[in-house]
């Protein structure tokens, strides 16, 4: 629906004075989380609960000839065993998700689920798994994206390529997409220099510390309850209902506290299996993944192979740019090659630009969304070439970016013309920051890079209820992944004109609200915030009506200001203001409880840009890289709770540092994952890092009443490139292959 975006009484362009928004109150779920009593996915139990475990394929690619579970079923304590045969055909929409949760004809990657058991203890469940005989016919496999595209590559799915895929490539290529405008060849012909480079990035995992976990209870009548750690319990409800062939309304899903997601908990893995086990055993079933299972069978992001070609004039003006982006998305279609193709050149105002994206399947776990899916790798490749060209001409890399920066009115590389955007502001802030002028030590280098992300909105419901004592409870349908309860309470308090601690925000289960889009796309503060503000405005309207009844005047003659209903002007009559508390106290006498609610598909999210600056030091004898200093400059639209905005900036930057330096999926010749643990899947630890400085810029999003833009994802787009540019300068050699692990950096230094 079209939204009236303006705050009443506020002229366009006029900065609003906030009382609560922009402050840093303590989060309402804080004490639960510092005392250990907050309940996460694995922290729930039920009477008579069974423990479920999954049997996983040890093969990268194998036909499943047969599964014999009779010995497992006969083991004392085993109450149910399920295989794919226990699931129906399911809707087409969820066919891939079902096949990923429980393999059908083929196991498509190392770690692919092939059967599951529910037993009276974890030990018995583990023992039962060993008693299941699976007859596999192993098949040739492929895990590398370029290898998988070759015509003679082992094929995962026959006939999957759609009409966009040209002849001469493997059927593993699912889809090809192209964006751009102008004539790149003509543009390259005009350039003083054309530079073409190829890049590779390894697959990385979202790396949330909480493994997937759920507790399912399902009866034979199809009525079911599910407790689960997820980024979207409504998505879990809808997906599981479709897979299990039950009505969405019969499945109530409650979101636990969530121990990190970053996109990796935007789909289902264990949940349909736990429900199927529970249905079969007719008892509650709890399932948790081990860390090994998390790494082998969930997440990760795509590994990529990218070619970038850019033409630049001596003055730094880019004449043309093109990129070919090949992303493998694991065993099923849907790698974010399209997002990479759309975002690759988004920070630039280009006359001639073309990107081609390839979605490729391989024998790896199905790629899940990871924070700005597809964008960081594309930015790594593009920003590396821009940097090399700029430095080749002896130009300041920030000046070159400013010279070519997308701004209001720029026709973006993916099509639309940008409205007011904050890229130049981030670049200018970077240029003016002391970090840019600070001296570098020996073996140190400084890199900068820009990044872009779309952000989006989606279906959102908020219900705001006034209690009899005049405090407020706010129900929303998006798991609080990083302080969003605080932001919602703040926006409701701001709008109602009451103190922050008078609002309590809760995450409602799927029975309490309508459909809510997943906590993804950096949407929550934007979309749920918008719905919160609108719900509060609806409540204020009712509150004004109640005051009007008491005063015996027209409701239109009452306005809400500073937490009270007041006569709107002298003509309305002279009455002392009525506070929220006063109106709440007489709610029963004036028509009943007061509430405001708002349901919307919150379209029209604003895009967001960031510039990152990083200093690294390279040990020339070992190739070890140390991050010495890091500063994030990002447009937040409006920072509702600045501490949590900074936290998003810092967290994204550090995930990017991991991706750039040490994180990678390592497969052996046998197609098995060699590092399914936090020992060798090396996410940054505290001693690896400096403080991460942040500069929040606020260029308001006209699509949100307070100007909010999403901030969660953009922060992971620039770091790969910024660090690569920094390391390349420090090492004296251009690094094009992520991660820049010490053996690679040392080899690059030694090979010049």
């Amino acid at each position, binding site marked *: 629906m079209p939204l009236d975006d303006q705050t009443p009484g506020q002229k366009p362009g006029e900065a609003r004075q906030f009382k609560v928004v922009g402050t840093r109150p303590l989060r309402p779920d804080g004490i639960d989380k510092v005392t250990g009593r907050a309940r996460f996915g694995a922290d729930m139990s039920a009477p008579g609960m069974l423990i479920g475990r999954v049997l996983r394929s040890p093969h990268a690619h194998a036909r499943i000839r047969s599964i014999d579970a009779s010995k497992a079923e006969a083991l004392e304590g085993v109450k149910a065993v399920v295989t794919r045969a226990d699931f129906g055909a399911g809707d087409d929409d969820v066919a891939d998700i079902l096949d990923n949760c429980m393999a059908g004809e083929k196991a498509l990657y190392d770690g692919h689920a092939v059967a599951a058991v529910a037993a009276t203890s974890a030990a018995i469940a583990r023992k039962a798994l060993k008693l299941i005989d699976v007859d596999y016919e192993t098949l040739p496999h492929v895990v590398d994206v370029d290898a998988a595209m070759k015509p003679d590559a082992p094929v995962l799915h026959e006939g999957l390529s759609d009409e966009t895929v040209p002849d001469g490539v493997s059927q593993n290529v699912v889809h090809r997409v*192209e964006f751009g405008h102008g004539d790149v060849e003509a543009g390259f012909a005009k350039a003083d220099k054309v530079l073409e480079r190829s890049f590779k990035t390894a697959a990385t995992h979202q790396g949330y510390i909480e493994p997937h976990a759920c507790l399912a209870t399902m009866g034979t009548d199809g009525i079911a309850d599910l407790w689960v750690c997820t980024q979207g319990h409504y998505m879990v409800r809808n997906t599981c209902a479709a897979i299990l062939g039950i009505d969405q309304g019969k499945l109530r899903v409650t979101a636990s506290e969530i121990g990190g997601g970053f*996109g990796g908990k935007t789909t289902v893995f264990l949940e349909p299996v736990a429900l199927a086990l529970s249905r079969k055993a007719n008892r509650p079933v709890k399932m948790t993944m081990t860390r090994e299972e998390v790494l082998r069978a969930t997440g990760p992001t795509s590994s990529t192979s990218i070619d970038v070609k850019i033409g630049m004039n001596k003055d730094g003006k880019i004449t043309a740019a093109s990129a070919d982006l090949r992303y493998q998305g694991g065993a099923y279609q849907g790698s974010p090659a399209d*997002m990479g193709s759309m975002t690759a050149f988004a920070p630039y105002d280009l006359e001639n630009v073309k990107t081609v994206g390839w979605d490729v399947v391989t024998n790896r776990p199905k790629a899940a*969304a990871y924070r700005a899916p597809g964008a960081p790798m594309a930015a790594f490749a593009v920003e590396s070439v821009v940097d090399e060209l700029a430095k080749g001409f002896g130009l300041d890399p920030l000046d070159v970016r400013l010279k070519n920066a997308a701004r209001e009115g720029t026709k973006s590389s993916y099509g*639309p013309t940008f409205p007011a955007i904050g890229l130049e502001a981030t670049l200018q802030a970077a240029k003016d920051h002391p970090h840019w002028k600070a001296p570098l030590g020996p073996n140190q280098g400084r890199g900068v890079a820009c990044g872009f992300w779309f952000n*989006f909105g989606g279906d959102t419901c908020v219900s705001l209820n006034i209690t009899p004592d005049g405090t407020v409870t706010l129900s929303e349908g998006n798991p609080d992944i990083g302080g969003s309860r605080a932001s919602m309470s703040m926006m409701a308090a701001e709008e109602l004109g009451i103190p922050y601690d008078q609002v309590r925000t809760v995450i409602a289960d799927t029975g309490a609200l309508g459909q809510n889009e997943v906590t993804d796309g950096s949407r929550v503060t934007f979309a749920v915030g918008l719905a919160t503000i609108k719900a509060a405005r609806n409540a204020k309207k009712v509150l004004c009506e109640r005051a009007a009844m008491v005063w015996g005047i027209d409701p239109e003659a009452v306005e809400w200001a500073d937490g009270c209903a007041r006569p709107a002007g002298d003509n309305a009559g002279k009455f002392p203001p009525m506070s929220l508390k006063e109106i709440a106290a007489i709610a029963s006498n004036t028509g009943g409880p007061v509430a405001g609610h708002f349901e919307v598909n919150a379209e029209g999210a604003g895009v967001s840009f960031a510039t990152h600056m990083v200093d690294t030091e390279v040990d020339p004898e070992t190739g070890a890289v140390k991050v010495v200093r890091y500063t994030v400059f990002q447009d937040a639209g409006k920072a509702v709770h600045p501490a949590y905005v900074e936290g998003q900036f810092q967290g994204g930057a550090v995930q990017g540092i991991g991706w750039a330096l040490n994180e990678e999926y390592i497969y052996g010749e046998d197609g098995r994952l060699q590092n399914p643990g936090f020992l060798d899947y090396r996410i940054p630890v505290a001693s690896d890092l400096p403080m991460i400085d942040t500069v929040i810029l606020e260029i308001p999003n006209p699509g949100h009443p307070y100007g909010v833009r999403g901030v969660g994802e953009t922060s992971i787009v620039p770091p790969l490139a910024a660090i690569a540019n920094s390391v390349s300068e420090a090492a004296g050699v251009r690094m094009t292959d992520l991660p820049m692990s010490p053996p690679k950096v040392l080899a690059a230094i030694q090979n010049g």
Partner: protein
Amino acid sequence: MVRIWGSLTSATDGQADVEIEATTLKELLDGLSEKYPAIRPQLQRGVSVSIDGKIYNDSWFQPIKPDSEVVLLRRIVGG
């Protein structure tokens, strides 16, 4: 006038900008589907539409003004 992405131009006789009479998002998508049947598989896979720089995924009755800039995009996903 709708701007479509590069690889769809095979469905529109090579035109990157195509003319569709539409006052809402739904009319636009129906019009595209009717005029260029070859584009239907892509529409079925899901698209996002940028109207004057704002992204819309689903809202059928989102108004489109005569002078609006309308761009068809791959369905935006997030993490």
